């Protein structure tokens, strides 16, 4: 068993060896620029790009023509949201709706649009992390141009009810964007049946390489976007720039594997996740964050009360886990997702996200359980808050010295 044990599959996944194998030829012999139209190096690369596009489309039941390559889900989110706002701002309106628990790529893009004069409503979630479609319905305005809701939350793994939201948007002629970066290979996605206009994908959350993603842009009815990256007119003008063939090939292969292995893999991963949950469920003052039913199989997010988050991370250095999302973990801000669920700051700080994956083993899970008992126990023995709680003192009534 290799330490630290990797339990951070929602931050990024290893490239599946089968994916790497498929990529390597495009890093050596087949190095052509897919845009080169005058020789076979270019054609070989272009054919590989189109094969990969078909694989990505197949996983989500879309038409390959509806898939646009980008550098990753963050760029896809930016392109979808700014692209719609700038294209439809004058016709549909300047009101946008999203959710407080979205990824930073969505939230920061919306903040930027607010500075440009757009109006944005950020919906609250319920205590289980799910949005209430009625809340959304109430927020819709005559000038709402876009609704953006993620399919699977990156921190707590809850699955938002996008089918219903899509229908609601469709009725009102509002464009619906879904960030599905955390969903591929975890949740069935059928874009031929869903009322979704735009969907963001990432390769490196699904055992593909970093640096590549895609945006689904619906053809019927056609959705238009203002391009954010201009240049040689690649990707039908939606996104210019030399295509990184090997990365695209990797994403195609990763999505093909996801399509073929999703069902069996999710069963296996769910068993391991449930084993982890059962292993720590008997520990006192442990709280699961987010709904356990509408949730992907590989995520467990738990708060360990009365221990501080950073020292907990330090104690768990043999586990590669995340407290809050990877993108924000450089700062000491408590997770805004857990705050949106109503968790107090200290509980948000002491929450750990375990995300399991394709290469997680039972042995690793058992080791993690043992380590959690030992380390949380040690920190609690050292914690004055735990001592007070054990003595029956309600910490909320304590007058803390201002500091």
């Amino acid at each position: 068993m290799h330490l630290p044990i990797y339990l951070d599959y929602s931050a990024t996944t290893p490239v599946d060896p089968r994916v790497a194998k498929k990529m390597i030829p495009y890093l050596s012999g087949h190095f052509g620029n897919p845009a080169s139209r005058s020789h076979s190096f270019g054609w070989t690369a272009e054919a590989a790009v189109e094969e990969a596009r078909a694989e990505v489309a197949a996983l989500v039941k879309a038409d390959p023509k509806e898939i646009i390559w980008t550098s990753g889900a963050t760029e896809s989110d930016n392109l979808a949201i700014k692209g719609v706002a700038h294209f439809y701002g004058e016709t549909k309106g300047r009101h946008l709706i999203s959710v407080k628990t979205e990824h930073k790529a969505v939230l920061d893009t919306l903040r930027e649009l607010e500075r440009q004069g757009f109006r944005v409503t950020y919906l609250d979630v319920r205590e289980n992390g799910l949005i209430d479609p009625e809340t959304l319905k109430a927020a819709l305005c005559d000038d709402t141009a876009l609704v953006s809701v993620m399919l699977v939350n990156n921190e707590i793994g809850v699955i938002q009810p996008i089918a219903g939201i899509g229908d609601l948007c469709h009725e009102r002629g509002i464009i619906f964007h879904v960030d599905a970066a955390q969903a591929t290979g975890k949740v069935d996605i059928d874009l031929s049946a869903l009322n979704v206009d735009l969907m963001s994908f990432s390769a490196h959350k699904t055992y593909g390489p970093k640096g590549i993603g895609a945006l689904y842009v619906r053809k019927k009815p056609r959705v238009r976007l203002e391009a954010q990256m201009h240049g040689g007119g690649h990707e039908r003008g939606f996104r210019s720039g030399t295509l990184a063939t090997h990365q695209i090939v990797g994403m195609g292969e990763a999505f093909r594997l996801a399509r073929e292995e999703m069902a069996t893999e999710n069963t296996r991963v769910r068993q391991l996740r449930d084993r982890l949950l059962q292993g720590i469920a008997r520990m006192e003052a442990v709280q699961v964050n987010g709904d356990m039913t509408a949730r992907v199989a590989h995520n467990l997010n738990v708060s360990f009360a009365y221990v501080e988050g950073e020292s907990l991370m330090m104690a768990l250095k043999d586990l590669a886990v995340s407290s809050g999302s990877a993108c924000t973990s450089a700062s000491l801000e408590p997770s805004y997702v857990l705050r949106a669920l109503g968790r107090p700051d200290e509980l948000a700080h002491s929450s750990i996200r375990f995300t399991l994956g394709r290469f997680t083993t039972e042995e690793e899970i058992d080791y993690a359980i043992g380590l959690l008992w030992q380390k949380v126990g040690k920190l609690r023995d050292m914690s004055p808050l735990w001592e007070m709680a054990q003595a029956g003192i309600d910490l909320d009534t304590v007058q803390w010295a201002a500091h």
Partner: protein
Amino acid sequence: MSYSVKVIDHYENPRNVGGFDADEAGVGTGMVGAPACGDVMKLQIKVGENGVIEDARFKTYGCGSAIASSSLVTEWVKGKTVDEALNIKNAQIAEELALPPVKIHCSILAEDAIKAAVADYRKKQGGEA
């Protein structure tokens, strides 16, 4: 966040974790910080009749630097008189542990904990006298 060797040592092998009966004579208890700020330190000193700190205990809810700062001061106050203990400054703690700038507040908190424990001890002494 990269921690110094000394912080890691104190964090992994904290000295003097625990507590005394706060009502016992000669025991001073200081509790500083707040859960919402991410640090709570409880420092207890046991002072002999000669005014020398014979023993110290701590419990800390906080990051590795906070735990190390409080562990360190329990070592430092032992054998000192109450007045000498009050001369321990946060800069010395920060220097000893090589705390990065974002962790200086941990050393300040530890200094505050000494002051609070001494104040509590003196208050009890004053009350008895």
